[in-house]
């Protein structure tokens, strides 16, 4: 049998019948055990991670004739003649597409002549992890209400409900079909090419999920909570002008226990990509204002290891 180290953890001093024993070995054994007991190494602790949550979210400005900015949404395509203001340096744009795996039916980012047919917008947040972490959970809540300002649809598009195709739809879909056109991507940049979007490692990707199948709840929780039908909290969520939006409603994409290890020194990015069908197909329920038709709550949960000071 090949040589194998003893299976003791705290000390290499192993005493056994028939072997020598002396004060020096005993003292070394006790010192090893005591040293570890008084300064327990991280590897000897089963539970040594702490959950840290990165929360972000916003309720966008109301859609009306005077809506102004679209931030934080920025287009995912970088096309010199279209997306640059002012001079274009040689070689720019360096990343013609800044995210991978975002294709949805009805939008072509590289249609004829390099132009796009429809477009997509990303809310992209970048994180720096100087020490290794484990991505544990990701939650994307789209606040969509049956009344109120966030309907999940552009109200100017007739005969279309939230996240549905209208009469102009790509092959494979019919009028009234649910759309599946939001991408949620968590990717990590290559440490040697940290600005090259082609070289990212996509650690998490959700695409082609049917938005209307991810309802927050099917439980009938009356919007005005008459009775009351359920226990509410303070302050009641109503504005006086809009009183039928008390329960939390919307679409929820939530993944837990992901267990995705992220190496030390990583530059990572969480992006939510929404469509704007402004070309051959569309506009579906997104209309011309995809940035304003839902509010957002997103939470990224990572596990960070405890450490010595």
């Amino acid at each position, binding site marked *: 049998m090949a040589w194998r180290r003893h299976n*003791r953890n*705290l000390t290499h001093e*192993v*005493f*056994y019948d028939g*072997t020598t*024993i002396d*004060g020096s070995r*005993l003292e070394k054994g*006790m010192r090893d*055990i*005591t040293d570890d*007991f*008084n300064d*327990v190494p991280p590897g000897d*602790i*089963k*539970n040594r991670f*702490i959950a840290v*949550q*990165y*929360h*972000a979210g*916003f*309720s966008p*400005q109301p859609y009306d004739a*005077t809506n*102004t*900015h*679209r*931030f934080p*949404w920025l*287009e995912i395509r970088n096309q010199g003649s279209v*997306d*640059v*203001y*002012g001079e274009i340096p040689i070689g*720019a744009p*360096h990343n013609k597409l800044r995210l991978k795996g975002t294709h949805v039916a009805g939008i072509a980012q590289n249609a004829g002549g390099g132009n796009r047919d429809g477009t997509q917008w990303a809310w992209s*947040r*970048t*994180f*720096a992890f100087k020490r290794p972490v484990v991505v544990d959970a990701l*939650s994307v809540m789209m606040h969509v209400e049956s009344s*109120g*300002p966030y309907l999940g649809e552009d109200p100017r598009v007739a005969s279309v409900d939230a996240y549905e195709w209208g009469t102009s739809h790509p092959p494979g879909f019919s009028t009234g079909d649910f759309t599946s056109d939001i991408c949620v991507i968590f990717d990590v940049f290559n440490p040697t090419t940290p*600005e090259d979007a082609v070289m990212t490692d996509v650690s998490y990707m959700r695409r082609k999920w049917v938005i209307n199948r991810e309802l*927050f709840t099917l*439980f009938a*929780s009356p919007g005005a909570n008459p009775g009351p039908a359920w*226990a*509410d*909290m*303070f302050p009641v969520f109503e*504005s*006086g002008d809009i009183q039928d939006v008390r329960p939390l409603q919307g679409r929820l994409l*939530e993944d837990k226990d992901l267990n995705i290890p992220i190496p030390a020194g990583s530059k990572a990015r969480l992006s939510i990509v929404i469509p704007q069908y402004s070309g051959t197909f569309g506009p579906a329920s997104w209309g011309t204002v995809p940035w304003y038709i839902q509010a957002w709550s997103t939470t990224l949960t990572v596990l960070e*290891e*405890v450490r010595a*000071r």
Partner: protein
Amino acid sequence: MAKIDWYKLARGAKLLVSHIYGPLQVMQNEIALTSDGIESEQIEARYAPFRVNLSIPHLSSYTNHADAPDGSGPMHAIPFMLPPLQGDLSFTLNTDTGNIPTANSDTPEIILDEVSVSFDTRCEPGAIVSNWATGNAAAGISAHQGKISYERVGNYNLRLAILEKKPKWGRAAITDTHPTQVIWAGEVVADIELASGYIRSGNPYVVTDIRRAIDPYKSYVFMLTAPNLGTSTYVELVSIEISLRFLSPLRERDSGATIQNIPTRHLGERNKLNTYSVTGAGQHSSTPRPLITAVPTAGDNIEANTATGVQTSMAVIDEFFRAKLRGGYDMHSEVPVLESLKDTAAYTVLSVPLFNNTRFGGVSTPDPVGIPVGFPYVTSAAGKFIDRRYIPIVSPMTIHHVLFSWSWIPFIVPDGAGGVVFVRDIPGGSSAGEDLKLDIGVGMGTGARADMFGYEQIARRSLRYIQPTPMGAGNWIDEAIDLIALQSASTFPLSFGAMNTHNLELHAMNLEGSGQPGLNGMTAQGYPIFVGRGLGGVGTTNNPPRTNMQATTALSETIGAEQWLEVRAQVYDHSGNWGSGWQADQMIVGTGGLWVYIIGKTHLV
């Protein structure tokens, strides 16, 4: 108990039980007995990280029409505080000097470890063009907004700082509103750090191993200044992600029946239901090993493998370690069947924004005065501005404090006639007919993909802007734990035409219940509230899985099945009429809105 000592085996010493078995039994007792446990000072990695994460959708010289104290702008600032948790919080009231903390060397330290800042530039070495790029006349609807300007990447020079000040906290008069110390500062030099197509060290900008001690009784402000955003072409900082990483030592978790909503099965106590009778390992040996119960007597031979052998006893401790020491919670609020670690909890902060992406940065009254603009849900002069966030409960925590900030940072809105208006007048208070009211709360909810729906209140606060000057309890600014002035005079918010005393505020909500220390008083709020996912046992007909809520003396409405935290706020005119008493272009919510900080203990998982 904690760390142990042992008798050295000096040359010539007789081998005694106290040399070997004594220390081993002490170790065994610490590992296995309910009353002891491995403490944080015995753990090499005894500092747990937590982060104050601040995500700002966008920022420009229009949304933040505010200069830093040195005159450069735009500037944005977010106040926060990292107070001691309830068990460590102690102070005496003093309306002259402000509340006086009871100094305690046992108050766990907090250390600033890392700062990182990032923003979205479409993956290019350029700047993002603002919606105000074509100037004032376009009312902030530039056709070029969102485009990349390679020429203007230099506009992204950033100055970053964390400032410290003694909070107003308890003091009747408003004095000393200015931060007194910079505890950290950083700078992004755009032409060097953001202009390369191959590596841009300024995005994300990260500084690690800062090792700066934080005073739990001081307030802090993170300040970001971008002095060139409005130079030549207006550009915008988009998706700003600020992460402040702190370290704090592990501490004992909350336990006992006074903790609200804690699972009754274990009450957070260690080894409540089971006790060690063997090493309990089994993972690295075929059978569990008996604990050390017998020791040799004087004159016995020195043996290795008998019941009282040296190796047999050492192996007990070794086997505990090889099976790994347990403690903390799992993600479903369950404690380990048997655990050895005593200090398994850590300080944590969850930062949640509200009213943070309005049309122009904040919310203001229009000209002519009437229905306020910039945020939805309000369609009449009687409307209330409402906002909420959903935060899933992933790992169990006990909530000790809930703080929130308020912004009076000015911003710009179009005047409707091709120009712009600088919104910098804050409300005059109820006596002036500008009766601003804020209701804010945190709750836990159940009902996501479930067959029930409901909330339980965790914390709440109501503020009424009666006077813009101190007038006593019940007045908005008198209720603040800090009022901060951090802006140059030229752009400072005005109150009745004069420079206001401050442009940032920090307040504290009160947890439901009473009798426990909070920043609003030593008996202002209830016991810590446990929130965590549960595996089962819900239902009112079952044995209650959680302790009662203190305020209602009843089981939480979420009956141990809470799934998310919800933060809500309502901002409204107390008289219910924005069109009466208010002036045109008056600030209702300053730019950036408010941040809610849910502070408590999280646990090793």
